[in-house]
Structures are given as structure tokens and as C-alpha cells.
């Protein structure tokens, strides 16, 4: 009997050890304060500003191990980084950053092209794109929030009309505009549709009653119901821009479909962040979970869960999500504060100014890595402050 008992107990122990290693490694969420998050955001914004070029472009990418600066560039990412700088200026109360973000903005506004009643910017060497222009609108709205300066109100409307020109009757958005044919190109962009929905929802906030919010809703419904099938996605896409858009339309813009979509998105961001918290990048965990994810990937999950936190606080029908959403958001903040390159880390590299304040994935940082984590941390800070006040 003792032999059988030993056999069963051994099998049980091996089974649980296997589960622990392969299925549920510890989810490690460093605890951070709102002040630490603010400091990390300061460092991230400083990285973007410090490494800007004279022409208003940002440092696109840097390999710290090979001391190699990427020669690539991307207009949509440029717009996104500019937007995050304005977000930072508004959220952190740092008006001096606006001047730097304005240089990034000028890079876009100098490249506007005219259409039938609209304007859109065309990044050098790229097509006129929906996503790049949606994020230009978002950047302009964030600038308005940071400065209360109405100087670009007409530009916001004008680029907003480009977004409407790309919108189809079912809410789908075409991702490109062909300047030669003067027509929208019927292709979808992976994130562009969500970016456009968010931009339209933001415009409603700036210019209520002009119909921008009504235009955002069919696109949100398209994202909720049809996008994944149309684009051939195997699983629903965890679209943080859609989460931003849902948060922006708020409870007044929610119906059963959009509320259910918000729940689904919360689930996607939740499992993404839980999985991320299991990653150590060392030992056997490296084989089972690989290295910690790309900062842009984790950052977008943080942005998405933060947007849904704002929505769930306002919408009673989603209030049951709040405890878990707050846990995931706090975990995101803790992970990313602890993963940021500090001054001490940077000192060990040939160009510390290109390292300090950034987040690297296997030695490489790209500007959208810093953008998304910065935006996520800025959105997490109010929740952490609330928790600290509540004790």
C-alpha cells in the first residue's frame, strides 16, 4: 500500500508542479506609488523630447547593444508620439513640453494635402492614411486640452472631415486615400479604424452638436460586430483605440452591443496583462513564457485597461469590472515602472541619453514603445492617486 500511496502522491505533486511552471507561474506585480509613476512618465517624456530632431521628427528606434539608430520612420507613429506628448503636458501639468510637441505637430501641418472639403497630412514617402490623420486629430485635441488654445480648431474640423470621407455606410473606415484617383482605397488598417472612431469621439467633446459623436458610433459598432470577420482575424482584436473611443463616448453612447464590446476588450487586456506579469525572462520561465513583451504591446494593454477603468467608473452596467480592472492597471504601472531604463542602467551604454527613460525589447526601443507606455502610465496615475487617498 505504501508503494501505491507514494505513486499517487508523486503523480499529484508532479502534476501540480507542472501546472505551476507551465500554466500559472507567479504573477509578479511590483507595487508602485503615484509619485513613482509620475517620475517614470517624466523620464519617458524627457526621452522623447531629448532625442527629437531639428525637423520635428522623433528618434524612431535605437539598438542600445549595437549603438545603432534606426533609419526608418513612420507617420502614424509620429502622430501618436506627438499626441502622447500633449497628453503628458496636460496630465502632468508641464506646459513647457507643448513647445516641443508643437515641433512635432508642425512636421504634420506642413504636409497637409487638400481634398474635397477636407485636409489630411501625408507623411513623407507614405500614402495619405486614415490612422496618421486620426492621431493628428487626437494630438490636436490633446493640445487643446493642454493649452486651451483654439488656434487649431479649424484644422481639427478639416482633418476630421477627411476621416468622415473615409467612412463607409456600415461604419467601416478605408485606411488609405489615393491622391492620383482622388478616391478612398478600400482597404482596412489594423488599428486605423479604432483610431478614427476615437478621433471622431474626441471631436464631439470639443465641438458638441456638430455630429462628430454620431459619426463615431457606427464605426464603434462596426468594430464590435464586423471588423474581425471582415479582416479575417482568428480572434477578436484587443484594440486599445476602440477602448479609448468607448471611454470617450461614455455611458450616453453605450448600448448593449457597445457595453458587451467593452467587457470583451477588458477581458483581452486583462489576460494580456496577467500573462505579462508571469514573464521573468530567465531560467525555465524563459522557455515557458519567453521574454517580457514588447513595451508597445504591454503599453497598449495598459492604455486599453485604463480607458475601460474610466468608462467602468462612469457606467453602472460595467461597475462590476472595476476591482479587477484596477488590479490589472496597478500591475501594468508596477511592471512598466520597474522595467524602465534608469540613469544608472543608461550609464553603461555608449549613448546614455538614448537609453534613459525608455523601455527596451531585447535591446531595442522604438518610439511607439515609449509612446504607449507613457500614455498608459499617465492614465494609471489617477487611479493610483485615488487608492492612496482612500488608503
Amino acid at each position, binding site marked *: *500500500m505504501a508503494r*501505491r*500511496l507514494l505513486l*499517487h502522491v508523486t503523480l*499529484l505533486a508532479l*502534476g*501540480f508542479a507542472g*501546472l*505551476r511552471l507551465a*500554466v*500559472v507561474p*507567479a*504573477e*509578479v506585480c511590483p507595487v508602485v506609488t503615484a509619485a513613482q509613476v509620475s517620475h517614470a512618465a517624466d523620464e519617458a517624456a524627457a526621452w522623447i523630447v531629448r532625442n527629437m530632431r531639428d525637423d520635428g521628427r522623433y528618434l524612431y528606434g535605437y539598438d542600445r547593444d549595437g549603438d545603432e539608430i534606426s533609419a526608418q520612420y513612420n507617420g502614424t507613429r509620429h502622430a501618436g508620439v506627438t499626441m502622447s506628448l500633449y497628453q503628458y503636458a496636460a496630465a502632468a501639468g508641464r506646459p513647457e513640453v507643448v513647445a516641443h510637441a508643437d515641433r512635432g505637430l508642425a512636421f504634420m501641418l506642413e504636409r497637409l494635402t487638400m481634398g474635397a472639403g477636407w485636409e489630411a497630412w501625408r507623411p513623407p514617402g507614405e500614402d495619405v492614411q486614415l490612422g496618421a490623420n486620426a492621431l493628428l486629430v487626437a494630438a490636436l485635441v490633446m493640445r487643446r486640452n493642454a493649452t486651451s488654445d483654439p488656434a487649431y480648431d479649424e484644422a481639427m474640423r478639416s482633418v476630421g472631415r477627411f476621416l468622415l470621407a473615409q467612412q463607409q455606410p456600415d461604419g467601416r473606415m478605408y485606411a488609405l486615400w489615393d491622391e492620383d484617383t482622388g478616391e478612398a482605397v478600400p482597404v482596412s488598417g489594423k488599428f486605423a479604424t479604432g483610431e478614427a472612431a476615437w478621433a471622431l469621439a474626441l471631436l464631439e467633446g470639443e465641438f458638441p452638436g456638430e455630429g462628430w459623436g454620431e459619426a463615431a458610433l457606427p464605426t464603434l459598432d462596426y468594430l464590435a460586430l464586423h471588423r474581425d470577420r471582415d479582416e479575417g482575424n482568428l480572434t477578436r482584436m484587443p484594440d486599445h483605440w476602440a477602448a479609448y473611443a468607448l471611454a470617450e463616448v461614455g455611458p450616453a453612447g453605450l448600448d448593449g452591443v457597445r457595453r458587451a464590446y467593452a467587457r*470583451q476588450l*477588458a*477581458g483581452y*487586456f*486583462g*489576460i494580456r496583462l*496577467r500573462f505579462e506579469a*508571469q514573464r521573468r525572462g530567465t531560467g525555465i520561465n524563459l522557455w515557458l513564457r519567453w521574454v517580457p513583451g514588447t513595451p508597445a504591446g504591454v503599453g497598449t494593454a495598459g492604455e486599453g*485597461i485604463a480607458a475601460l477603468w474610466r468608462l467602468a467608473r462612469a457606467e453602472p452596467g460595467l461597475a462590476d*469590472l472595476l476591482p*479587477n*480592472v484596477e*488590479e*490589472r492597471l496597478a500591475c501594468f504601472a508596477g511592471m512598466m515602472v520597474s522595467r524602465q531604463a534608469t540613469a544608472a542602467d543608461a550609464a553603461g551604454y555608449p549613448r546614455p541619453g538614448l537609453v534613459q527613460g525608455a523601455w527596451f525589447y531585447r535591446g531595442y526601443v522604438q518610439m511607439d514603445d515609449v509612446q504607449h507606455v507613457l500614455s498608459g502610465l499617465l492614465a494609471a496615475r489617477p487611479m493610483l492617486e485615488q487608492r492612496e487617498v482612500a488608503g
Partner: protein
Amino acid sequence: MTAGLLAAAYVAAFNVARTRLGVPEDEGGRARPGVLAGGALLVLGVVAALAAASGPLLRVLEITPETFRIAAGFAGVIAAAVVLVMPRPAAEPLPRRWRAAVWPVAFPLLLGPEVLALAVATGSQEGVAATVAAAAGALVALFVLGFLPRRPLPDRVLVWASRVLGAVLLLVALWLAVDGIRDV
């Protein structure tokens, strides 16, 4: 998790038909009542303790309850696969008198890894009372089954019932894993 699903989860995890095949019997072909009752009570105590301690336990292990449901689902899938392949439990050596309640009734017949994981998962999600009620219901079903003489319950019927409950466990386990993935 609905009450019905919770009840089905414990009936399937305890696999009352498979367990009945392994419970020591008296000469009349009925389960030995003291042994069965003792084993069931011991198991109920373990399930209650795990459910009650699920919160602190998961905190110590640094696992969110949502993620643990994925693990419980994995354990359930593996256990269900074992049941579907081997619907009859292995014959275990029997100790004398009350000790048979501990071995083999409580362990390994009832307290398999799927039951231990399920107790933690449902304890953290559904609460201790609901977990204990569901487990108690399943154990009562086992007790009733134990008192039926074997003539109307030939092995063939119990083996097929064991397979059916294995399939139910598979479905419940998949549901648990998917729910853990989809939850926030």
C-alpha cells in the same frame, strides 16, 4: 458560474460512478457505509478548507483567481482524459476497518487533482458556502449510489456512467479555462 454548472462540476469531478466502482463493499454488494461516509466527510472537510483558504492561498502563490481558473481547467481536462481512457479506477490495496475511508476512498478515489483545483477555483469565485453545498450534493449522490446493491448497477452501467461523467468534466473544465481567459 451558475448553480447548475457548479453542481455538475462537482458530480463530474468526484465522478460518483467511477468512485462507486472503487469503494470497498460488504458481502451484499453495497458500499461499506462507515467507510463511505467517513471518506466523504473527510473530503468535504478538505474541499471546505481549500475553498475557505483559497484567497490567502492564491495570494501566497501570486496567482489571480481568474488565472487559477485556467489552471483548474487544465487539471480538469487531464483528469477527464484519464477517466475517458480508464473509466474504472485501479484496484487499490485495502487497509482494515476505518482506514479504508482515508485510503482509498478519500484519496485517491475522491481527492484527485481536479477536485483540489476545483475547490480552490470555486472557493475564490463562488464562495465557500456555494462550493461546500455543491460538493456536499455530489457526495450525497455518491452515498445514495453506494447504498444501492450492485445487481441493478452492473459494472457495465457504472463504467459507462463514469465515461459520461468524464465527458461532463471535460466540458466543465474547458468552460473554466475559457472563462479564466476571457475574464478581466
